[in-house]
């Protein structure tokens, strides 16, 4: 337990003391939320963009932490031989993975608190005109599934690519999923073929789920549950099968 707590503390410390990671996990989401709430350039289809932006940017925050930050950090640890070296300590892989997962969840809780706080300051009205927040449980479940899906994708890349290649690929993937994921730009604004493609990716499924539950007060669609669940199981399994520790 002592080793798990020490590892968890180290993982969280490394996320919060690394400038790039901090910019990725907090800087970008908060800046996007502030900027696009004030500057109405996005086709959000609403007179009150913050209502669209908070759920979308919460999905973005989940993706940035569980996929991008986790993948870049793990990739470099693998490249520097840290994962290999930890293999000959009593820490063990289960505790190392547990520490990483809990660290990601802790950062996500912090991100959510900051983004929701900023959202309220900007006049966010959750659950649409009725103010329904009864679906917050569904939203949380969708975020957990999204974390598993994105974490699996991030570790799949970190465990197979060289650190610098991984850095480039995972950043590119972040931008692509950001644009195609309905986080800033509604899926309805995409060409039909692109929107159809997006709908089977975890980014769009998560942002749709959050837009529904936290934005319009509608439950998560069955298709989004299925997409999230398939990615949440499939990506970690494939990552586990292909991960190379050194």
């Amino acid at each position, binding site marked *: 337990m*002592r*080793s798990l*707590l*020490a*590892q968890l503390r*180290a993982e969280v*410390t*490394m996320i919060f*003391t*690394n400038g790039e990671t901090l910019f990725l996990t907090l800087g970008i989401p908060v800046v996007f939320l502030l900027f696009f709430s004030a500057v109405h350039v996005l086709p959000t289809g609403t007179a009150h963009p913050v209502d669209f932006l908070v759920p979308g940017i919460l999905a973005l925050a989940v993706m940035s932490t569980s996929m991008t930050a986790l993948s870049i950090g793990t990739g*470099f*640890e693998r490249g*520097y*031989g*840290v994962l*290999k*070296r930890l*293999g*000959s*300590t*009593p*820490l*063990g892989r289960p505790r190392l993975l547990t520490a990483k997962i809990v660290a990601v969840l802790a950062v996500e809780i912090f991100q959510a608190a900051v983004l929701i706080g900023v959202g309220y300051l900007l006049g966010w009205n959750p659950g649409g005109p009725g103010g329904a927040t009864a679906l917050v449980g569904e939203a949380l479940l969708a975020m957990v599934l999204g974390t598993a899906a994105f974490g699996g994708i991030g570790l799949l890349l970190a465990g197979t690519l060289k650190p610098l290649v991984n850095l480039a690929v995972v950043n590119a993937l972040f931008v692509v999923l950001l644009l195609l994921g309905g986080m800033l730009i509604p899926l309805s604004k995409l060409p039909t073929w692109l929107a159809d493609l997006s709908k089977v990716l975890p980014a769009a499924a998560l942002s749709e789920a959050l837009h529904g539950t936290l934005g319009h007060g509608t439950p998560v669609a069955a298709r989004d549950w299925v997409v999230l669940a398939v990615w949440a199981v499939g990506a970690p399994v494939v990552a586990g099968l292909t991960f190379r520790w*050194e």
Partner: protein
Amino acid sequence: MDHADTADPAARTAPDRTPAVECDDVVIRYGSTLAVDHLSFNAYRGEVLALLGPNGAGKTSTVEALEGYRPLSGGTVRVLGLDPGSDHTALVPRIGVMLQKGGVYPMLGPAQVLHLFAAYYEDPEDPDALLDLVGLGDARRTPWRRLSGGEQQRLSLALALIGRPEVLFLDEPTAGVDPEGRIVVRDIITAQRDKGLCVLLTTHELAEAERVADRVVIIDHGRLLAEGTPAELASGTADGSIRFSTDPGIDVAALAAAVGTGSAIAEERPGSYRLRLPDGADTPAAVASLAGWLAEHGLSLGDLRTGQSLEEAYLAITGTRSVPDPVTVDPPSGRRRRSRGRR
């Protein structure tokens, strides 16, 4: 070398002294490449065993098999009586590992990393005392990636020691370390040996093996070529020669006659001579005659040496890849290895 005689060969082979590290007929393959080829040796508590060989000899593969990183293609390994693969969880608290390179979070400083690793073990060493021991007390907060190569190696050594291990595996512990750092590393290694640890290290540097190891296992192409104390290895391939240097072009025939019947002298390089004595010759008497003849002729005497160094033994052994013929001490085929070995 100076510790070679503290290890008593008789005690090592006594039946009640079980080896801390056992390699028995180990084979390691990577695809079609044979990295380790039926290698067997043991290492014991209270000794420093050096795996010595040129780059690519199979040293790291062997050590990583003992650390549980490499599956074996054949043979068995045991560390403290445990299988490094299947008994991994029971073994890791009892071993200390220093990888050939890396292994440390690049953004964390020595103090942070040592405190983190200390938390992995039941009864760790004091991280701050270890920092001072390896001479990193002034670099406590410097991120690993900004440490010099030697500082990184010393931090890795400290990390290997933090859990109070019974066996230390050190892969090239002095590679990239400056001369002062090397002394620190060597002192730590011998102090751990004196505390009763079994220290297994790899090196491609002869001088390092000669200085720090009680016993040396020489391997090349994954095979054991020779095993023994540095003194045993050097004398095992000795050829009863006396080497010396003086002015070039002396009258070797006259000198040989003065030294005694049956001796022969060759000038191997200008000013460098090798005097061969007949079997059973009295070496001290021959040295006295040699010195006397040179003095009579007003010549200086330098670099007088009987037997040979471990370096010559190593070159002979790895150069011929068999028990060497004493005459072929300078192997013409060993040039490349030689230059690397001397680095």
